[in-house]
Structures are given as structure tokens and as C-alpha cells.
């Protein structure tokens, strides 16, 4: 008994040592700035000077009444929901198709790589690329529409349409990664399970509903949560595509953080907005985690 204790304790100590490097790095470079955000959020500070004035919660309280705040909050919600749903649905369907094997089908490895390539591009690149393509007068998309003899669309200046355009650009460069994770999930489903279902006469959709989706619950969880977090944190890509126009309809809260921090020289408000955003993302991720985990447990 005693010997086992020491063995276990030894393992604990070794484990703690193993955790140390990652803990130190994250403590210095992530936690310290994170604490700073919370600290700055209660000060009035221009980000440059040495004058910091404690203002309590004033930075938070003024946020809701700043111009465009609610429009930007709405835009953020639409963007996050739109991107997450589209990415998950498209990536899932794509994974199903890419998983099909058999005679007469095209080589899957190659196609998989093709769909993944957009993920390799940076947000700034994708943003600028789509901005060029959305150009009303000489953009590729309107040129293609012109070939079909349809009226041109004003992609970057129409309420509603522009948000769609931004979402499409974001989805385009994210489906690849999610697809690969879904594919991995699909390939870990034992073949004989599906075989049995097939022999029992289950249709493809029944197999999907009863076996495939439940078995992939954990990859769905991962994809939903990481996509949501990434969408909340997205900054460069939506900014470069639409510049936040028209009005405030595609301006996300992250862009507002940048504005307060580096244009308006109001680092306190920028930090307060960061705090709000962090809290919202955390709550939503937790909610998703609880709901999705419960579903995983049901299956």
C-alpha cells in the first residue's frame, strides 16, 4: 500500500513537471495580457501615455449607448450564426460525399486535397481576394453573371447582400478544415456496423440518422465549438471584404475593438469591449459544450 502511494505520488510529480513548460508559456504570454485587459477596462487611458484615470465601470456603461453598438452586435450574431451553420452543414455533406468509395468515382484523396487548399490561405488574403471578386464594375463574379445575361449585383453596398457576401468568403476558407475532421470521424466508424444495418434493410438516410450522426457526435462538438469561437474572433477577413459597410451592417465587434484601441485612442473602452466579447464567447461555448455533450451521452 505504501509503495503504491509513493509510486502514484511520483507520477503526480512527473506529471506536474510535464505540465510546467506549457503552463509557464501560457501564464506569461496569454494570462498576463488577459489580466491586463480586465485591468485596463476600468481605466480611462489612451494606450500611449502614462495618465491612467480610474473610472470604475464607466467604460462598460457607455458601450450600449455608443453609436452603432447594437447594429454591430446584431451583425456579429448574424455572422457567427451564419458562418457556423453553413460551415458545419456544408462540411458534413462534403465529408459524406468524399467518404463514398466504389467503382466509377473520382479519386477521393485528390478531391479532398482540392477542398482543403483554401484553408491554407490567410484571412487577409482571402479577404482581399473576395473583395476584388465582388467589385461591382470589374469583379469576377459580376463578369460571370454578365456572361449569363443576368443583372449585376451590388455585392458590397446592399444591406443584407453584403453580409451574405462576407459570410460566403468566410465559409469558403473554412469548410476544408471541418470537412477533414468530419472525414476522420466517418472513417473511425466500424464498417461492420454499417454492414449489419444494410443487411437489416436500413436506407441510407436511416443509417445516417441512427448510426453515422451519433457516432460522429464528438467531431460535431469539436467543429461547432471551434468554428463558433473562430467566427467570434474573426477580424481581418470580414473587414477587408466589406470594410464594415453598408452602414454598420457588416461591422463586427472585433473591428470596433480595433477602432477604439487604435483610431479613437480609447484603450479603456477597447478593453471593456474585449471583456464583454470574452464573456459572451465563453458563455456560448460552454452552452454549446453542455448541449452537445448531453447529446453525445444520449447516444
Amino acid at each position, binding site marked *: 500500500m505504501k509503495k503504491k502511494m509513493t509510486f502514484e505520488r511520483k507520477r503526480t510529480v512527473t506529471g506536474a513537471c510535464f505540465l510546467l513548460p506549457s503552463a509557464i508559456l501560457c501564464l506569461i504570454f496569454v494570462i498576463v495580457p488577459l489580466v491586463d485587459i480586465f485591468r485596463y477596462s476600468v481605466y480611462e487611458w489612451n494606450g500611449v501615455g502614462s495618465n491612467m484615470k480610474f473610472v470604475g465601470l464607466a467604460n462598460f456603461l457607455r458601450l450600449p449607448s455608443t453609436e452603432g453598438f447594437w447594429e454591430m452586435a446584431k451583425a456579429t450574431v448574424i455572422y457567427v450564426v451564419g458562418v457556423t451553420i453553413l460551415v458545419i452543414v456544408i462540411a458534413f455533406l462534403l465529408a459524406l460525399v468524399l467518404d463514398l468509395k466504389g467503382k466509377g468515382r473520382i479519386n477521393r484523396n485528390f478531391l479532398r486535397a482540392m477542398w482543403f487548399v483554401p484553408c491554407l490561405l490567410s484571412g487577409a488574403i482571402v479577404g482581399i481576394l473576395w473583395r476584388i471578386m465582388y*467589385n461591382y464594375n*470589374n469583379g469576377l463574379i459580376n463578369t460571370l453573371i454578365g456572361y449569363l445575361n443576368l443583372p449585376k449585383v451590388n455585392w458590397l453596398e446592399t444591406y443584407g447582400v453584403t453580409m451574405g457576401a462576407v459570410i460566403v468568403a468566410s465559409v469558403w476558407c473554412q469548410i476544408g478544415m471541418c470537412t477533414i475532421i468530419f472525414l476522420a470521424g466517418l472513417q473511425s466508424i466500424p464498417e461492420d456496423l454499417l454492414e449489419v444495418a444494410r443487411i437489416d434493410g436500413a436506407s441510407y438516410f436511416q443509417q445516417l440518422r441512427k448510426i453515422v450522426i451519433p457516432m460522429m457526435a464528438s467531431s460535431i462538438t469539436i467543429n461547432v465549438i471551434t468554428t463558433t469561437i473562430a467566427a467570434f474572433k474573426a477580424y481581418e477577413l470580414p473587414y477587408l471584404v466589406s470594410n464594415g459597410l*453598408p452602414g454598420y451592417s457588416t461591422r463586427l465587434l472585433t473591428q470596433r475593438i480595433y477602432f477604439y*484601441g487604435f*483610431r479613437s*485612442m480609447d484603450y479603456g473602452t477597447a478593453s471593456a469591449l474585449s471583456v464583454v466579447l470574452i464573456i459572451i464567447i465563453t458563455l456560448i461555448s460552454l452552452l454549446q459544450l453542455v448541449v452537445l455533450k448531453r447529446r453525445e451521452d444520449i447516444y
Partner: protein
Amino acid sequence: MRKMRKMLALLLCAGMILGGISACGSKETPTQAPAEGESKTEESKEEPAAGGEEHENVTLEVCIVQPDWSDEWDDMEKKFEDEYPWIDVVSVGVQENQGEFLTTRAAANDLPAITQINNNQNVWALCEEGKILDASGFSVAANVPDSYKDAYTHDGVFMGITQGAAFTVLFLNMDILKQAGWEAPPTNFDELIKCCEDIEANTDVAAITVAANKTTNCWMVWEGILANVYGDELGFGVYDEQIKDGTFDFAKNPKATEMLAAISSHMMTGTSSMTEDDVTAAFADGAVAMAIAGNWTAANICDAIGEAAGDPAAAAAVLVPFNEAGKDPWISVSPEDAFACTVQEDPNVAEAAKVFYEWVFQPENFKIIQNARGTVPVLTNMTDEHIVLPDAVADIVPAMNAAQYVMMSFNLLTSEFYDSSCTALKDVYSGNLKAEDAVASMAEALKGSHLN
């Protein structure tokens, strides 16, 4: 195990090789002295420098904002380095990220020795922290007219010499105007609108555009209207004062709102998101007949019009005719971005910055970037032999000098004001918002937005 090891080894090897490469790379520029002050300038290669003195090698960092003349800037930089071999100039172009750039550099105590600045809150904050050198000590500052000195003075510090006077100009592709039946540019607002209608009726080209993506342009269109509507009524300088006090009422005279609505209805689709380069491109593609654009883009735009029409003479420019028939136009003027010296702890860097600063504003050097942009300089010692303006612009300089003007009011207001007002204006340009709603929202935003 083997696979894992192989991969790690591969990664490490790659890292080391690259580390070596980048280490070599940094040796090529031996004076990578950090600007914190404790710079150990490497073995000073004693090269005879201009003036016969011996100098330690210095790396001088210069930040420029507008890169559409960055090629000419490189030429100028090379000319300087030939004359002063002990100074190595490294320049960085930052464009619209200037705010972030200066703020993070200030936080790291690593501001570039010379930087272009704009009259805005970022720079004022730096100035208040004592990070910007008072430029009135430089001998070249004597060549700057007082009004431009005042405009760039904050907290008693003259922050820097501006590159030129910025005002908006109506650029026209006369080739297209002729197709629409106009032999000469419009001379007042009613004619301008008539001209737009004729272009839309007789050609398949868009009538007019603005590089509204740039806040200065977006605002100057509206301010040009305001200047013409209120200029004579209020008299010189009153508009500027009222904006500064926050007592100006945008909605007082409905005529301004009507003019805004009228001009917006003829704007090219996509105007609200167009950058200055998009406007140049639209001219080059022959997709637009007229544009209200900054005089600082003259060289590019005139080239583009010449390219589209196949004849350089097709490019024309006039002061924006927002005036009533029979009156002279008012214009909105602002000093362009200025060059500022920052306070440097390292005396060598400070010395080099001084040398560069004095050198740049000598007419024979400054003309290199000046003429690349085709803009009107403010330096009093620059004469016609230095300035080569595009023909179209050269014609309007006398008119511009004679015109009555308001100082552009953005320099007096908060970033939050110009963000919200330009958002509204862009919505008007793109036809998403009624002019009167935009004007009302600007009037609302102005309250409490003035600094002081």
C-alpha cells in the same frame, strides 16, 4: 519512434538552417541598432561623409503613409544614401494601419525616427507625451507658411512640415463629356447635375464617383457643399469656429441637404467602397466620366484618363463646382500628412534624422516625391522650375489660390464623429440612406464630439 524522431530532427534542422539564413540576413545590415538608446553601433566604418566629418553608421527608420508613390520614394532614398553613405534609410509603408502602427511602436518605445503623421487623435496623444520633436528648430521650417504651421501645431509643438495643401478637385474625362454633348467642364452646381444627367442619358458610362473609402474624400465632398452654401452667409473663418465649438447646425439650410441628395443620386455604383486606386482604375477602364478626388491623386488619375481616352489632353480638372451660378466656388482645404521627427534617445539617430529632415525638404530633393503625386506644395522656396504638375492640374492652381476656403473640420473633431458621419455619408452615396436622415444624424453626433 523512428518516424517521430525523423520528423522532429527534420523540423529542428530546418529551423537551424533558417535561423542561420536569417542571422546572415541581419548581418547584411550591420547597424540594426535597437532604437531604445543603448544601441551599440557596430565597428564604425570610418567613411568620409558629406562635410568631411567622420560619422558612425546609423540606420534611420522612416515611416511613410501613402505608398502610391513608394517607387519614387525609393529613388529619393537612394539619392540620399549616395550623398550620406553613413546613413542607411529603411522605410516602411503603413497606409491605413497608421494608428495601430504608431500606438504599438510608442508602447515599445520604438517610434521610427521620422514618420508621416496626420492631424488626428493618435498623433496628438503622442505629442502630449512629448514623443514628437518640435520641428520649428529646423531651418527648413522657415519655408512653411504660417497657416500651415498653425494647423500642425498641437500643445505648442510644431509637429511637422506638411507635404502640401489638400483640396478636392473635379477630374473629368473630356472624351466622355464630349460624347454627352459637353465641350467644357460644368461651372456651377446646376450644370454639374445637368452634365451628370446627360452622361447617363447619352453614354453607358457612370457619371461621377468619389473614393469614399478614404474618410478624407468622403467628408470633403460634403464639406465642399457646406462651404459653398454657408461660406458667403457666415463669412470667412466662422464655419471653422462653429464646428470647433460644436454650435454648427448641419441642417440649418436645407439647400445643402438637397445638393447632397442630388449629387449622390448620380454616383457610380460601388462608390461608397471605392478606394483611391479603385477610382484611378475606373478612369483607366473608361467606366466613369468624372470624379471628385483629392488633388494629391492628380498624377495617377490624369494618366489613367489619358490611357482610357488614348489622348492625355482628355484629362481635365476644375475646382469642384458646388457653387451657385454667378458665384465663385468655395473649397475645403486641409494640410496633407506631414513629416514629423520623433524624440530619439540615441544622439546618432537623432543627428541622422536631422540631416535627413533638412535634406528632404530641399526643393531639388522634395520635388521627386512631390511631382510623383502632382500635388501643390506649400513650401515657399519651391518654384516653378521644381514643380512639374500634370497639365490639367497646373491650370487650376491659380484658381485654387484665389478661391475662398474653409479649413477641413475633421482635424477638430473626434474619431468617433468622423467614423459615424462617414458611415452615414457612405450610405447616402450608395443610395441606402436619405440625405436628410444622414444630415440629422451628423447634427446629433456633432454635439459633444468637439475636442477641447
